[in-house]
């Protein structure tokens, strides 16, 4: 057999009886749809988190007052603004993905890859920026009135270090471990929900460039 023979056989191959069902017009399992699904899941989680953060200071066990309350809601605002920033990016890419495909194969893959890559990087930077904010929110709600003492102790760092070095070491170790833990968790989430799709697109792009 050679390619001419193969081409003849290709043209005359018996067709299997495929039944194109009407339900096929409504369901999708494409990479693009999976990406949109991940965005939606993320958005729902974000909304639930925001509602939770807003409710926490109203609960009896974790009520905060005065300046702390002001700082707390200022940080929550920061949380919301950064969230909206990267969700706007997710929304733009979702809209782009939903558009009927008018590009050739290479062009559409490259466009999808770079838009998606940019959205993930925006998401990653927002998470990194929001990490200290998240920790501050936790400290305020968990520490309540003791938060003042904690801030006071750090404000007079030198004196505290001389009188109570164990406190400084403990807080620093907890802080560093928490930050590293949260960074690792964020990277795992990015890899699990978005990274593999990005990798698949990258592999496809490389196949075109090869």
């Amino acid at each position, binding site marked *: *057999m*050679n*390619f001419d023979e*193969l*081409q003849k*056989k*290709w043209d*005359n*191959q*018996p*067709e*299997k009886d*495929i039944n*194109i069902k*009407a339900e*096929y*017009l*409504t*369901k*999708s*399992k*494409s*990479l*693009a749809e999976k990406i949109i699904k991940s965005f939606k899941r993320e958005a729902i989680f974000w909304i639930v988190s925001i509602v939770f953060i807003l409710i926490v200071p109203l609960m009896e066990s974790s009520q905060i007052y005065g300046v702390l309350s002001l700082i707390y809601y200022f940080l929550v605002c920061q949380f919301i603004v950064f969230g909206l920033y990267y969700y706007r990016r997710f929304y733009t890419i979702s809209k782009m993905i939903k558009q*009927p*495909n*008018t*590009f*050739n*194969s*290479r*062009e*559409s*893959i490259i466009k*999808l890859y770079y838009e998606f890559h940019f959205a993930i990087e925006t998401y990653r930077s927002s998470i990194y920026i929001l990490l200290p904010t998240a920790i501050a929110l936790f400290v305020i709600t968990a520490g309540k009135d003791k938060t003042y003492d904690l801030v006071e102790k750090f404000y007079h760092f030198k004196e505290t270090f001389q009188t109570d070095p164990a406190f400084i070491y403990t807080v620093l170790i907890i802080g560093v471990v928490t930050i590293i833990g949260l960074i690792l968790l964020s990277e795992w989430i990015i890899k699990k929900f978005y990274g593999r799709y990005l990798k*698949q*697109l990258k592999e*496809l792009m490389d*196949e*075109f460039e*090869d």
Partner: protein
Amino acid sequence: MKATEKEFLDLMQKHKGILYKISRMYFDHTEDQQDLIQEMTFQLWKSYQNFKGDSQFSTWMYRVCLNTALTFFKKDDKKQDKYELHENYDRIDTDDSAFKEEQLKYFYDAVQELNKVEKALIFLFLEGMNHKDIAENLGISEVNARVKLNRTKEKLQTIIKKNGYEF
């Protein structure tokens, strides 16, 4: 069912050969093939309203289907229900159509070892497209299409020979 939906599904039935060939080239498991056919139909339907008839229906269909196949990834844990070829390697059926089908099975089996872009190249070549049309469909230069296609044909020949079939 709306009139346009029916019209579209009739068109799909008429051109289902394209769906079948692409799905069989891209996946060797029947469940994956069915998933891809479903996805290609979905994407075609989504783009159908924008199809203005500037090009032939089949030309437009090739582009949408290949775009879909390239970015479609199968589930990881599928049962192994692929077409079994190796057991019957030396058997040549006296029935001509069965013989043709067997030869095509060897081809489809070998194609599974190509990457996604190579599969697209071979598919467009077998559909009778010239280098210019292949290049246009995939968004690469004509020279690149020629070089890649020749390289892919050589690779395919090697795979088929390696599998013990004369090519």
